[in-house]
């Protein structure tokens, strides 16, 4: 630079040397035979008493066993339970497996089951799951391997609560502990948590179903969708489930040798309606909106076929699913006629003036905004002017709970028991006492939902919920959009993965890389 460019070149030689050093030091940060899973957000709390976010529940499901677990067809099957009986409509008797040990070596007994449930019920532990156990009167250990659940009143959906992860007796409450979450008895042992970065699990060598074939798992937090895909392309991530933008799938297909699976899922996307709004409380208007939306087109173009049109909250995988409900296929001409009949004629035919204006609230996620814009465009064709308003999640959700909306779009995730209808459509479930955000009121639905809650016979319950689904499909307090498919992108050498409708990762206990010898 000064009478020569030595210093300048020296700087850059140092820079290049550093880059070369980086290249040399860039190596895998986990032992071989570990599977690396990419997820979008940091699991907040793995302790099953507190885990509510999807990632905590899924990762926790690998560390903790539960009495029952939903299988790949969404049916509850025994896990820690050897068998379970319904003694009467308020009493369940469960016999435990005798060969289960926690990761700390302690054998699992009925006392651990009692402790887990009592710990959730203890108000001082402030568990978010306490509300789910409200019908539970007592849990009694009737011997080392037998436990009885007594309910205060008949509550048919209660067996769903047998899917809570079990922890050893005397585990500290996470509300007062800064330590790692308590040990579980699942196929993987929590090895380390690097907050905001990754969680490492190692295979449980003495797992009661046999040691997992993988040496362990690294759950890597990669918030950006595109970066997750780039990590996959570079093979620093082996497995992605659902955290993939639909737009990226064709790119993954073309640029990587990924094995991609898309299976029927249970996540239900819908449009919520404020039924106290003078226009929206008219059923014909809701029906017109339902048939003015071309779901097939949105699924094809925006979602890249990663969803299937939905007829209601319960997916065809659910035992209570009713397929014979009104489906409201796309028919814009009929939508116009219905709006005319409802008393909202188009003031200027095909001109720019709308029949009426509504707002549509959604989150500020890019795909959600694009879907909202597509719906706005489709409703415009029948003369409804939709104003799309996108908000940050906290603000959006707060508005929805307060009923401060005309239309909004959200999804229900992980539905197992049809009793969820009570929480969403019973007139007693208006926020803050439930999720009837649209303020839907129907005496017959209320009666059926109360009956469904106390009827323990499955056949009778199915009939009750069939009726509920038919009424709701006709009344349209929600406009069903689609069920999201579960999408898995994995390295082709990974064998044995089974997708679960709710995104449960439990089949990771049996998967292996093709280079490994499969267990006999």
């Amino acid at each position, binding site marked *: 630079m000064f009478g020569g460019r030595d210093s*300048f070149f020296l*700087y850059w030689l140092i820079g290049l040397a550093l880059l070369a050093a*980086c290249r040399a030091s860039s190596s895998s940060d986990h032992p071989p035979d570990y599977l690396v899973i990419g997820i979008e957000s940091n699991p907040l709390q793995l302790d099953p008493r507190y885990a509510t976010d999807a990632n905590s529940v899924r990762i926790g499901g690998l560390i903790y066993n539960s009495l029952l677990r939903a299988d790949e067809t969404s049916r509850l099957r025994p896990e820690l339970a050897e068998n379970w009986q319904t003694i009467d409509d308020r009493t369940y008797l469960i016999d435990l497996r005798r060969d289960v040990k926690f990761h700390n070596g302690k054998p699992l007994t009925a006392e651990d089951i009692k402790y887990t449930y009592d710990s959730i019920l203890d108000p001082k532990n402030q568990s978010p799951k306490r*509300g789910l156990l409200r019908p539970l009167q007592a849990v009694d250990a009737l011997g080392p391997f037998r436990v009885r659940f007594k309910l205060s009143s008949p509550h048919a959906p209660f067996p769903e609560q047998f899917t809570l992860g079990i922890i050893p007796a005397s585990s500290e409450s996470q509300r007062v502990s800064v330590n790692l979450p308590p040990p579980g008895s699942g196929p993987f042992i929590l090895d380390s948590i690097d907050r905001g970065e990754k969680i490492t699990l190692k295979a449980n060598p003495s797992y009661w179903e046999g040691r997992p074939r993988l040496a362990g798992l690294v759950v890597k937090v990669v*918030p*950006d969708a595109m970066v997750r895909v780039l990590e996959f392309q*570079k093979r*620093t991530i082996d497995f992605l489930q659902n955290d993939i933008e639909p737009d990226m799938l064709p790119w993954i297909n073309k640029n990587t040798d990924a094995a991609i699976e898309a299976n029927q899922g249970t996540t239900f996307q819908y449009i919520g309606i404020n039924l106290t709004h003078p226009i929206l409380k008219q059923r014909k208007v809701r029906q017109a909106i339902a048939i003015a939306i071309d779901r097939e087109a949105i699924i094809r173009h925006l979602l890249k076929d990663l969803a299937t049109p939905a007829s209601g909250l319960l997916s065809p995988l659910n035992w209570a699913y009713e397929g014979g409900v009104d489906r409201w296929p796309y028919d814009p001409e009929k939508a116009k006629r219905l709006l005319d009949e409802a008393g909202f004629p188009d003031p200027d035919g095909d001109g720019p003036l709308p029949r009426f204006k509504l707002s549509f609230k959604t989150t500020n996620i890019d795909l959600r905004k694009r879907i909202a814009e597509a719906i706005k465009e489709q409703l415009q064709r029948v003369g409804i002017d939709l104003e799309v308003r996108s908000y940050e999640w*906290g603000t959006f959700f707060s508005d929805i709970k307060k009923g401060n909306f005309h239309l909004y779009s959200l999804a229900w995730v992980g539905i197992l028991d049809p009793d969820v209808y009570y929480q969403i459509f019973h007139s007693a479930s208006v926020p803050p006492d439930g999720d009837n955000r649209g303020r839907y009121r129907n005496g017959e639905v209320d009666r059926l939902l109360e009956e469904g809650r106390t009827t323990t016979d499955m056949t009778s319950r199915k009939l009750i919920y069939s009726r509920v689904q038919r009424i709701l499909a006709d009344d349209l307090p929600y406009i069903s959009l689609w069920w999201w498919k579960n999408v898995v992108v994995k390295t082709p050498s990974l064998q044995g993965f089974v997708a679960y409708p709710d995104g449960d990762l439990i089949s990771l206990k049996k998967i292996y890389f093709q280079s490994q010898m499969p267990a006999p």
Partner: protein
Amino acid sequence: MKRYLLQRLLLLLPTLLGALTLVFFLIHLIPGDPVEVMLGETASAADKEELRQSLGLNQPLVAQYRSFLTGLMSGDLGRSLSEQTGVADLIRARMPATLELTICAMLVAILLSFTLAMLAARNKGSWIDRLALLFSLLGLSLPNFWLGPLLMIIFSIQLGWLPVSGRGGLDHLFLPSLTLGLAMAAILTRILRISLLRVIREDYVQTARAKGLSEKQVWLKHALRNALLSVITILSLQFGSLLAGAVITETIFSWPGIGRLTVQAIQMRDYPLVQGCVLVIATSYLLVNFLTDIFYHLVDPRITYGK
């Protein structure tokens, strides 16, 4: 000088208090309820109310503010509502990552800008000068969320030299530092180039040359040193935008720093964690500005403060 610095140091406290007060009331004003986040959808209204009471969230806002300040005085930042861990522990775990990234980004910015600005000023009007100006323009125009993935595609995917994202060794640090530091480098290059061109025409530089000093001594000892004052001002001001830029860079590069923690805390309406993060960010910013004042004096001893 000492008295002035002491005054400045004392002034940090009310400034910090002002920032914390503003954030405290703002975060409580925006819609959203941490109890909803903690207890989820299934909790009864009674359970929610009970938790609200136990966390003191049902108290008037002024009372909550008072209890926050009392905790702060005793060094207690409280517990995160979403992660159920001490706020101080969470910040302590994330702070090194942000410091590492911010300092490296600053180094990248200084290294790049000093090299380019000196070359440009020395060769004013030449292709080197035009190249430096083009770099400056590009650096300012390319947003981090675009530049980051571009660098990843080139260095990680195409060349395979560096990891895509995450925190680890030096190799993990290179791309995020470059992404974060480039915009700052662009600004510094412009400012330093102009300052150098202004200073180099001053009489004392001509005198230095007349005294027979070498060009290297003239540029480094006389021109650069005097041009540094404006650069230091920009550096300290830009530190704030570096912290703000770190939020985006940390997200793109899966960097587990304070920026991402702050965003998560705001999304979860985790009031204690938001307050803790703001405390750390505001303190860092104020300290850097304080150090800048000291640095002014070191660079130019003619600058004195007070009497």
